C-alpha cells in the first residue's frame, strides 16, 4: 500500500492507495504514527479500491485519537464498495463524508480554525 501526504487549504490530506484491509492496515498505522499531520486531517479514499472491517476499524481509531485532542478526521472520495462498508456498519454517521476533495479540505480548515 502506497500512502502519500499533501497539504490543501492548510490541511494535511492523506491518500492511501490500494486495498485497505487486515494485511495493509499496519502500513497505514505506521504512517500516521510517524508523520506530522495537522490536528484536523482529510483522509482521501479515492485510491482505496477495497476496505474491510480492519481498515474501517483503523479509520475509526484514527478519528477517536484526533477527536480526543480536539481535531478531527474528514473523509473524502470513497467509491461504492468502500461506502457500503461505512453504511452497513453504521459507522458513516460518525463522519463528515465528502465526494469532493477540495470541499473536504475546506470544511476541515474551517473546523480547525474554530478550535
Amino acid at each position, binding site marked *: 500500500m502506497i500512502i502519500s501526504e499533501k497539504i490543501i487549504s492548510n490541511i494535511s490530506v492523506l491518500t492511501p492507495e490500494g486495498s485497505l484491509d*487486515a494485511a495493509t492496515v499496519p502500513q497505514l498505522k505506521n504512517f500516521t504514527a510517524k508523520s506530522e499531520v495537522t490536528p484536523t486531517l482529510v483522509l482521501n479514499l479515492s485510491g482505496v479500491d477495497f476496505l474491510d472491517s480492519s481498515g*474501517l476499524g483503523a479509520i475509526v481509531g484514527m478519528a477517536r485519537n484526533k477527536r480526543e485532542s480536539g481535531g478531527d478526521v474528514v473523509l473524502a472520495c470513497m467509491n461504492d464498495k468502500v461506502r457500503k462498508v461505512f453504511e452497513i456498519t453504521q459507522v458513516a454517521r460518525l463522519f463528515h463524508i465528502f465526494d469532493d476533495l477540495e470541499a473536504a479540505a475546506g470544511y476541515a480548515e474551517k473546523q480547525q480554525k474554530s478550535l
Partner: protein
Amino acid sequence: MNTTIILPAEMRYLRLATITAWTAAEIFTDTLEIKEGVHDFCHAFELSVCETFSNSVRYADPANEEKNVTICFSSCNDSLTVSVSDTNPPFDPVTSLPDINSYPEKGFGLFMIHQLMDEVTYTREKGGNLITMTKSAGKHEK
C-alpha cells in the same frame, strides 16, 4: 461450480483469498447470465471471504504450526455458497453490532457478513471452525 483453494494461514495470502472470491462469484454470475447487481454480488463474496480468512489467520493457535485455511465454492441454482474452514480454537459467533459511539476498532467482521449474505452458519468440525455463507444472485440487495 465446485472450486476449492487451500491457502497458508498467513495474512499475505489475503489478496489471493479475496481475488479468488471475487472471480469465482463473477464466473458464477456469468453462467446465470445475470447482468444486474453483479458488482454488489461479487463484492459480498470478496468482503465476506476477506473477513473470514483474516479471522482464521488472526485467531489461529500460535502453537499449531503449518496451518491452512480452506475456501470452497459451490453453487445450487441461483445461489452461491462459500465455506471457510480453519484449525482454530472454537469461538462464540456473536453477530451484534458494537456500540458505534464508543469508536470501536474491531468487532465489525461477523456482523458485516450477516448483512452481506442471505444465510450464515457456524459449525465446529474436525478440530476447526467452518463458516458457511450463501447468497442468491437473483434476489436484490438486502
